[in-house]
Every structure is written in structure tokens, then in C-alpha cells.
């Protein structure tokens, strides 16, 4: 009962208020606010960067989890602890680190610039920032599933004549796939609203490097609460759908 009330106050009430604010001028105005070129570009950029990040995360996170679980090497424990570091670092600091490392005044940044690739104040920096802040998500969902597999399944495949690659593709991957997808979806949802690191590295140029979350912040700052609410509603809706998919998948996996 208390838990229900708490949830209602902490989650449902703010979301409902947001919906009311967004719809306060009618559906037409809401549509106009969302379809405004700057807003539309922001949503598209957000989805694109989050998608690329989720794909990279799915592959690299799985690889890291696999190495952590299956191999024994010096420094493994340290690496395992390091995985959680991005969650502990304030996201603004993450943004600062990326700018310091790859910004126009940094050696590495100049190197990329010379090669014709702009990183900071461009979409690649947004993806980098998102990758950093969501790094633990795939690793930490895949790791326990891999540990549960305990290697016997893989050994069984070897004794049946399967090569390492066939074994990974046919035995290991299908078993950890649900976890990979869950982790990737979670990082995707997390990335949609990422603000602190993105606002520092993106440059926030409307229609080019302005993400949805930063756009909301801008609208709030300039006093356009309706536009901010409209964009927020879009973000909430997408995030809610992702959460629904994740929980449906988890229920499916346990059922």
C-alpha cells in the first residue's frame, strides 16, 4: 500500500502532470511543437546516436563480459571493478574528459581533425559520451548469464566436434542473446535522456548537434514550458515503450 502510494507520487504523478502540460494547448499544438524542424532534428539525432551506441555496446559489452567470465588473467578483478566506474563518475565530468581528450586543443583531437574527422561538437562525441555512461549495462546483464553457463555447454559442443566459432555462434550466443538485447535496450533507454555529458561535448547546435534532452533544457531556460513538455512527452513515450519491451522479454524468458 505504502509502496503503491510512493510509486504513484514519485512516478505516475509527474508523468501525468507532464502529459497535461503537453496537451494543454490541444493535440494540434502538441503536434506542431514536436514536428518543429529543430525539435524533429533533435529527436532524430537522439535516436540515431542512441541506436549506434546500443549496437556498439551490445558487441563490446558482450566481448568484455565474455573475457571477464571465461579468461583468467592478471588485473581481471581490477577490470571488473573498472566496469562500474562510469556509473560513479558525474556525467558532466565524463563530458569534460572527452573534450579534454579530443577537443580542438587536445593533441588527439587535432590528429582526428587533420584526418578530416570532427569528433567533439559533432555526433561522434555524443556517441562516445553515451558509450561511456552506459558501458556497465550490457556487461552487467550478460555477465551473470555467462557465469551460469559455466563452460560445460561449450565443452559439450567441443566434444561433439564443434569448433570454437561454431560453438560461440550456435551454443553460447543463443543462450546469452536475451541478456544482450535486454542490456542494449536498457542502455538505449538510458541514452535517450542523457544530458550532462552530452551538453558538454555536443556543441548543441540546433538541427545539427542538439539532442532532445538538451533541447528540453533549452526550452525550459527560454521559458517555453509547452515546447519543453511536448519534447519530454516524446522522450517519455519512447522510454516507456522500451521499458515495456524489456519487461515483456524478461517475463517471456522466465515463463
Amino acid at each position, binding site marked *: 500500500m505504502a509502496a503503491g502510494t510512493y510509486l504513484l507520487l514519485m512516478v505516475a504523478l509527474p508523468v501525468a502532470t507532464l502529459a497535461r502540460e503537453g496537451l494543454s494547448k490541444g493535440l494540434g499544438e502538441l503536434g506542431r511543437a514536436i514536428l518543429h524542424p529543430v525539435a524533429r532534428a533533435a529527436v532524430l539525432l537522439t535516436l540515431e546516436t542512441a541506436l549506434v551506441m546500443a549496437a556498439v555496446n551490445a558487441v563490446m559489452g558482450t566481448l568484455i563480459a565474455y573475457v571477464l567470465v571465461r579468461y583468467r588473467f592478471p588485473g581481471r578483478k581490477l577490470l571488473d571493478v573498472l566496469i562500474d566506474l562510469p556509473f560513479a563518475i558525474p556525467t558532466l565530468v565524463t563530458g569534460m574528459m572527452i573534450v579534454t581528450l579530443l577537443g580542438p586543443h587536445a593533441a588527439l583531437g587535432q590528429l582526428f581533425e587533420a584526418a578530416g574527422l570532427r569528433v567533439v561538437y559533432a555526433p561522434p562525441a555524443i556517441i562516445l559520451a553515451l558509450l561511456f555512461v552506459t558501458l556497465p549495462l550490457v556487461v552487467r546483464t550478460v555477465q551473470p548469464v555467462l557465469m551460469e553457463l559455466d563452460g560445460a555447454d561449450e565443452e559439450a559442443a567441443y*566434444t*561433439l566436434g564443434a569448433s570454437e566459432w561454431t560453438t560461440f555462434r550456435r551454443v553460447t550466443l543463443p543462450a546469452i542473446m536475451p541478456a544482450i538485447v535486454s542490456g542494449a535496450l536498457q542502455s538505449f533507454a538510458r541514452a535517450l535522456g542523457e544530458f550532462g555529458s552530452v551538453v558538454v561535448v555536443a556543441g548543441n547546435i540546433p538541427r545539427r548537434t542538439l539532442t532532445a534532452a538538451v533541447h528540453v533544457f533549452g526550452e525550459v531556460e527560454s521559458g517555453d514550458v509547452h515546447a519543453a513538455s511536448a519534447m519530454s512527452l516524446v522522450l517519455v513515450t519512447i522510454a516507456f515503450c522500451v521499458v515495456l519491451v524489456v519487461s515483456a522479454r524478461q517475463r517471456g524468458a522466465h515463463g
Partner: protein
Amino acid sequence: MLVGIVARDLVKRFPGGSGRAVDVVSFEIGAGELVALLGPSGGGKTTVLRILAGLESPDEGRVLLRGVDVTDVRVQERNIGFVFQSYALFRHMTVRENVGFGLEIRGKPRAEVDRVVSELLALVRLAEFGARYPHELSGGQRQRVALARALAPGPSVLLLDEPFGALDAKVRLELREWLRRLHEERAITTVFVTHDQEEALSVADRVIVMNRGKVEQIGTPEEIYDRPATAFVAGFVGSINELEGEVRGGRAALGSLAVHAPPGAGDGTSVRAFVRPHDVELVGVTSRVEKRSSVEVATARVERLVRVGWMVRIELKLGDDQPLTVELTKDRVAELGLTEGEEVFVNLRDAKLFVQDYSI
């Protein structure tokens, strides 16, 4: 006899482990033989099995399968079937897909895979379970799927690691019987690891007893049981009574009991005797029978009577406080009128005697 498996001077150390997990192990297994690797857990028997399979590489020694040195051949190319203690079934595959896996990855045509899978599922009596997933099966059924899967690619050697360890007593007995029959039908060289002496002695043609990384004895179940080569084998196989004593006047005195001394053991040699529960003769309750003239007959007190089905385990304490366990049928116990706390006459029919660790 054609040789199926040869293990030659195998040695394996594990990083961080103390000493050798496998300590110079050698044996030969004939083609078509059914052999048990018996020993306590941590005795190195699973490691030996994994070395035979190629899942573990030995630090020293060679492995030969059907006369070919496979020490440096990868597990994939050894043509072995392996059944894991945990079954290790692929959980995202159906029973049919699991059994067919080894054939399918070899690129066998669909029709052939289907035919072999159906044949094996019939063999393990799971024909109607082909579409199920492993989590929908009982432990015994999973074990049979694991066996069918291991057999599907037609291995020349079948290796089983504690195959019945995780099953309940009834299913265990069934599967043992079934493994025995399967072996008779297919005559595939089979090695299974077990810590259960009854399982080893009742299923295998020959038994290799291992302890602390070494082979203690290799022999038929009869040899292992009747003529244990070492004190360890005597203690591990069938005996639960262990008595200490020494040779006096040509006889081994074990507290208040005595048996013939090991040949060549002079007076004062300390001996260990292993006595099977059914090798203890319970002459009768002291108050009701005449003590026989024989010097071996000693008195003991009945400490506890434990009924196990139609057998009764009688825990005795000898005059010198050494415990002795006897097994009798419940009818015999009734006939003798045994109750706890009573004094009885006991005699040893047989005992396996060892001077230090040398066999008689």
C-alpha cells in the same frame, strides 16, 4: 584383445593446486570394454577422464585411442562422446536439436540427421519427447538425452563423468541397468567416473580405483572386492570396519579378536584389518549361549540397532572400545533376540589385513 584406450604416465598439476591432481597414471582399456574409474571426490578421476577426452591436456604422459597417439589432437578431432555430470544440454534447443547437433555441424544431410536422431531417441526411450526443451524433462530424461547426443556422431569411445550422480536412487538403478544393456548392444569402449563403489562393481567389466591422483588397483569387480591390493581399496570398497592390532604368536591380535597373521609378518608388526559387515559372525547373546572354545570369539556390547529395509545394521563396541559394525537380516536379529545394551559373542569370518600399506 584390441586396445581401445591407453593412458601412459599421465601427470597433471593445476595452478594453485597443491601437488599433482593426476600423479603418473597408466592403464589400458580394451576395445569394447566397460570400465569404471572409482574413487573419492578429489581423487583425480574426473581429471583423467577429461584428459582422455582432450578437454584437459596432461603436463606429462601420452593418451592413445585405438592405437593412435592423440595427446596433441584437439578434443573436436578425437571422435569421443562425453556425458557431463550436469548434462550440459543446450537449453535453447529441443531434444531433437540437441541430439542432432553433432551430426548437423558435420554437415550431414537433413535426412540422415533425422534418421539417426529418431533411432537414438527410440534407443533412449524418448521418442515422443523430441519437441520438448531440456527444462521440460526430468533429471533421468535429461541424462538420457545427453547420452543420445553423445552417441549420435558415432564416437569410438564413450566417456561419462558421474553420469548418475545427480539422480535419485530408483532412477539411478534403472539407468545403470540401461547403460549396461546399451553397452552390450553397441559394444562401444566406455569409461565412466563414479564415487559409488556399488555402481562401479555392479556395472563395469573392470574397475580402476584411484586415490590422490594415483591408481590403487585395476581389476575385475571380483578381484577388487575379494583381493583388494591396498589398504585404501579394502577400506573404500565394501568395508566399513577398520581394526588396529599387532601380530602376536603368529596371529594378528585385533583387540579382543584375532585372525591369522599375514604371512611373513613377525611378532610385533602392527597391522590394519578391514572387515566387511557380513564377515562378522554374531554368535549370540552371552547370557544365552556357551562361549565357544575358540580363541577368536570375543565379547562386544550392542550400542545401536539401525533398521535399513530388511537389513539391520548393528553397531557394536568391542572389549577394547574399538567399534565394529555388523549387518544381519531382521529375521536373524529377531532369532538372536538382540536388543541394545546387551553383550554378545562375535567372531571374524574374514578380514583383509595390511602391514603398513602392503598387501598380504
